[in-house]
């Protein structure tokens, strides 16, 4: 008995070998491209007299920024410019996310209203604002609306405490006096108490079936307790009311028009997308689910809380997160109206002054990339946890 001779496949006909060759060629091509780019960059930079590296971050920036959340002056370094810009980006993003969520949910739910007129109005809102470029909206609010406001001397005012003019919105600033700490403490205590109440109510229901009106009690606690302490300790809070001094206002907090325009545009634009997400999320819950819930006698609010919302949120949350990410990325349009966000002060002014294009663009992109990747990672965890168990 002789074993049949093993038929030898030529090397180049084996799929594994082909894959290896393709990948090797790809790698070589990529390496060559990168090497060429680095070579060119070094030559070009040398020709322009720019030294590479991050040393410039320690140098004096020498320009001022109209809105800074931390101490900053022209003497601060470029590193500090970076932080100021980043904080401004985070500020407008945070405000935008808050407002866009509120408006978006309201409009999305209104679109499902049985009231024909309200549903149509909500649809018109969505179709109008999501089909106009965000940049146009930002420019519109800034140049056509806010820049058309009167000068400080002719400010529009509310109760002689809130002023709106071409320089922005000026509101009274709270000035805490000694003893205000007690109120802050009361707020912390109230929050802890509400958490405890929630746990207790849950246990109580598990044990005896009795349901406490947690929402009412919780709201009462969180508003009532600090208010009580505040009044009892003699209202230890003064207001720094803005007043007109010459051509400008002194005192109070000024919300610069750039922030207002960007905030308005980002909120409304993103809200029109969130509204669609909310609508489709709620509609994705099959009608049979609601019928089954009603058939076992669950009243409307419990049906909503225990059956519709948990299922709708599974659809809504991932898309909502990606809208939040879009909003954060879109806040970089601040450049167009001069709101001092990360891109405007760092990738704009700082880059023009130092010429460190590669370092600055890389740092800026890294910030957005980090935010995106962290949020996506969190999202994957959420998705894995809410995944419906199937066979």
């Amino acid at each position: 008995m002789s074993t049949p001779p093993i038929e030898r496949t030529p090397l180049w006909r084996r799929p594994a070998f082909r894959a290896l060759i393709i990948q090797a060629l790809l790698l070589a091509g990529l390496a060559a491209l990168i090497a060429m780019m680095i070579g060119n960059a070094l030559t070009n930079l040398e020709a322009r007299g720019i030294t590479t590296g991050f040393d410039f971050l320690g140098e004096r920036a020498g320009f001022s920024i109209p809105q800074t959340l931390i101490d900053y002056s022209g003497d601060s370094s470029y590193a500090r410019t970076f932080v100021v810009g980043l904080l401004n980006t985070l500020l407008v993003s945070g405000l935008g996310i808050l407002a866009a969520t509120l408006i978006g949910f309201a409009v999305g739910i209104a679109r499902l209203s049985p009231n024909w007129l309200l549903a149509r109005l909500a649809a018109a809102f969505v179709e109008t604002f999501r089909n106009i470029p965000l940049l146009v909206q930002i420019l519109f609010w800034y140049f056509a609306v806010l820049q058309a406001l009167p000068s400080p001397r002719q400010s529009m005012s509310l109760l002689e405490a809130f002023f709106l003019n071409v320089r922005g919105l000026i509101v009274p600033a709270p000035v805490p006096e000694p003893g205000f700490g007690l109120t802050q403490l009361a707020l912390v205590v109230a929050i802890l108490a509400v958490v405890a109440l929630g746990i207790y109510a849950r246990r109580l229901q598990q044990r005896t079936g009795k349901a406490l009106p947690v929402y009412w009690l919780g709201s009462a606690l969180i508003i009532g307790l600090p208010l009580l302490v505040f009044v009892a300790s003699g209202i230890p809070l003064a207001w720094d009311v803005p007043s007109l001094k010459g051509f400008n206002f002194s005192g109070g907090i000024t919300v610069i028009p750039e922030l207002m325009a960007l905030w308005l545009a980002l909120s409304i634009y993103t809200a029109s997308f969130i509204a669609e997400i909310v609508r489709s999320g709620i509609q994705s819950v099959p009608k049979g689910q609601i019928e089954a819930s009603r058939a076992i006698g669950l009243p409307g609010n419990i049906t909503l809380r225990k059956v519709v919302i948990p299922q709708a949120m599974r659809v809504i949350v991932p898309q909502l997160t990606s809208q939040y990410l879009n909003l954060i990325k879109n806040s970089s349009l601040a450049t167009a109206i001069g709101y001092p966000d990360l891109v405007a002060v760092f990738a704009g002014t700082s880059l023009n002054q130092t010429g460190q294009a590669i370092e600055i663009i890389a740092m800026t992109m890294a910030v957005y990339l980090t935010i995106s990747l962290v949020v996506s990672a969190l999202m994957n965890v959420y998705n894995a946890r809410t995944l419906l168990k199937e066979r």
Partner: protein
Amino acid sequence: MSAQAATTADSNTPMIEIDGLNKWYGDFHVLRDIDLTVQPGERIVVCGPSGSGKSTLIRCINHLEEHQQGRITVGGVHMTQDVKRIEQIRRHVGMVFQHFNLFPHLSVLDNCCIAQTWVQKKPRREAEATAMEFLERVQIADQAHKYPGQLSGGQQQRVAIARALCLRPEVMLFDEPTSALDPEMIKEVLDVMIELAREGMTMLCVTHEMGFAKTVADRVIFMDQGQIIEQAPPQEFFNNPRSERTQLFLSQILGH
């Protein structure tokens, strides 16, 4: 089961009374002058061609559908637009759907507990005990901690029956409970329903399972074009149908 059925005032009051019921979908007249009385403990099978209004009829009984004319009284409670009253009726009426409609985000056990917790306000332990009792009855207690998506269609439908029974209803409505199931799973669901019927549960079933009708029904109702064409005990209904439509329908579903 029979103990629960007797809780309503006295056995002479009908469990369900429908009087001159009319319903329209837009301009379409789906239910036409329906009169129907169901006594406690009675088991009724409703059949008829698709689109004849039989599902709509039983969905009116727990107000999943709103009717425009006529009176519906369930367990002595007269149905009005009043939300509280509708919820009261729904607590006495269990329903099983064609597509099970289990809550996919809740475990089998939680599906059975949710109404006990939020409607009857029972302690968790008690709710779980009741749930396990009924899951035991439909022979699926070992799957209590799984999720609906992990079960077969037949198992899901048995869970749906247990979920409805947990509220100890006086009437059970079945809306084509076996028509979305594979043939080999129909029997396990029908067995549970037959068992339920033997225990004396008042039942109203929309189904095409004529074997089931012959075994347990006290009365078979035939509907067509939104009206009750004929109703009779199964013996008479199958052997001696009076109307031409009934004959045609029976020949179509039994003839093959």
